């Protein structure tokens, strides 16, 4: 019986940089007959048993029509189709799939070889914005908010560099200049200069760590928050609890929404560290059908919101929420701790 010829070595050429890559063989009903371990672990392992043997049942419901159309295309017109689709149970990450029709020479059912790899992480991109975005009410105001938030962030980084790193390196330079003088303790100077340079490295590392975009592909939003919480716990300034519901729904949101939530938590925890003198901090992230709700509360000294509201990074928080048509509210009073509540409607992620 003639058998379809596979050229997996050729098809996977150049995919080494995309490891892991997923392989599967399906029939026209999308029934799976072959998978590799990466496919199994990424998509089937956690899937309900009634769904785990059908490729179509593993595709995210929003992409299933597109997938069916592509499969139909591959069956009737083209031998090869490629597309980006999201899979269930894969933290909402899109996967680039290449479908190849396998030729059985008219004998036996038609099969398809599917080769996939995780699509590169995409940040908020200009192409995704609505074509006539300037027609949106309040668009100009929002654009100004973004620019202002960026300027504030740059100013903060500038201050950190000036106040910390610059001072530390200045001191190191002073110690090193002592080496020109006769009779100085060279060992002591070397140790002090080394200590200060290491301190500067640590400061820059800390600052750049805050600036670098979290990679949600690796840990998802929930995992990235958990990592942040671990770091806060390590500092032992206060106890931190992080609760969340329905990880799958949270992770399936657009990256711009997740990034906004991540930055808001980063900003607010920075405020708590700096000003609150709190003993306990609670972070809660819930995602219902139509909105994401983030609450960050602490039992610190609180403040008078009418006096101190500005200049605590709260502008940035409110503007980040507003950009996604969400809302940030603050409940606080002197001696009463502080609670930040951010709600963002989920469907408005399309604004990005």
């Amino acid at each position, binding site marked *: 019986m003639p058998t379809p010829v*596979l050229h997996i*070595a050729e098809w996977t050429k150049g995919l080494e940089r995309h490891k892991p890559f997923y392989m599967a063989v399906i029939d026209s009903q999308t029934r799976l*007959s*072959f*998978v*590799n*371990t990466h496919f*199994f672990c990424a998509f089937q392992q956690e899937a309900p048993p009634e769904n785990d043997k059908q490729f179509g049942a593993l595709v995210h419901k929003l992409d299933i029509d597109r997938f069916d159309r592509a499969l139909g295309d591959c069956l009737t017109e083209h031998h090869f189709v490629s597309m980006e689709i999201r899979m269930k149970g894969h933290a909402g990450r899109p996967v680039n799939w290449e479908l190849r029709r396998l030729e059985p020479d008219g004998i036996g059912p038609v099969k398809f070889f599917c080769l996939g790899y995780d699509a590169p992480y995409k940040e908020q991109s200009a192409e995704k914005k609505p074509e006539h975005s300037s027609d949106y009410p309040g668009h100009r105001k929002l654009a100004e908010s973004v620019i202002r938030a960026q300027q504030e962030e740059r100013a903060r980084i500038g201050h950190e560099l000036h106040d910390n790193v610059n001072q530390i390196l200045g001191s190191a330079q002073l110690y090193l200049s002592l080496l020109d003088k006769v009779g100085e303790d060279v060992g002591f100077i070397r140790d002090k200069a080394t200590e200060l340079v290491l301190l500067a490295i640590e400061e820059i590392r800390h600052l750049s760590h805050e600036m670098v975009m979290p990679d949600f592909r690796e840990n998802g939003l929930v995992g990235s928050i958990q990592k942040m919480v671990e770091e806060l716990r390590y500092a032992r300034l206060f106890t931190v609890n992080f609760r969340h519901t329905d990880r799958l729904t949270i992770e399936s949101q657009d990256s711009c929404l997740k990034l906004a939530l991540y930055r808001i938590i980063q900003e607010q925890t920075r405020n708590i560290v700096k000003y609150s003198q709190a003993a306990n901090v609670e972070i809660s992230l819930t995602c219902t059908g139509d909105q994401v709700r983030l609450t960050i509360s602490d039992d610190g000294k609180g403040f008078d919101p009418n006096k101190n509201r500005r200049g605590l990074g709260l502008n940035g928080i409110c503007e980040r929420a507003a950009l996604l048509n969400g809302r940030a509210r603050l409940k606080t009073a002197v001696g009463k701790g502080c609670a930040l509540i951010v709600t963002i409607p989920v469907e408005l992620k399309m604004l990005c």
Partner: protein
Amino acid sequence: MKNDKKVVLLVDDSILLLERMIPMLEESPNVRFVVHAGTYKEAVTVIDDLRPDLILLDIHLPDRSGIHLLEVVKKNYSHILVFMMTNHESEQYREACMRLGAKCFFDKSTDFDQIPEVISA
């Protein structure tokens, strides 16, 4: 009705073997589903979760010996049939594998075509 078709785990790091094996296994009437693992580590993950009926196992894996995997499988899941495959057949290997509970021993270069037949038996 009981489904007698087998779930097969193919453990081998050679893409060329994969290219030949997939079509053969696809056509075998006794095979329901095939999973490929390229390393010992991948194979262990899949065995624990999938509990295959049959394993086609290469002796030489990139991260650890297939013979060790045979031993582990037979110790923990004695009902799983294990067919060993190698390119370097020697009586010593064959004896060791059969002693550890392998069902068959194939030389990939000479016995390859027999594999689907033996699976179907």
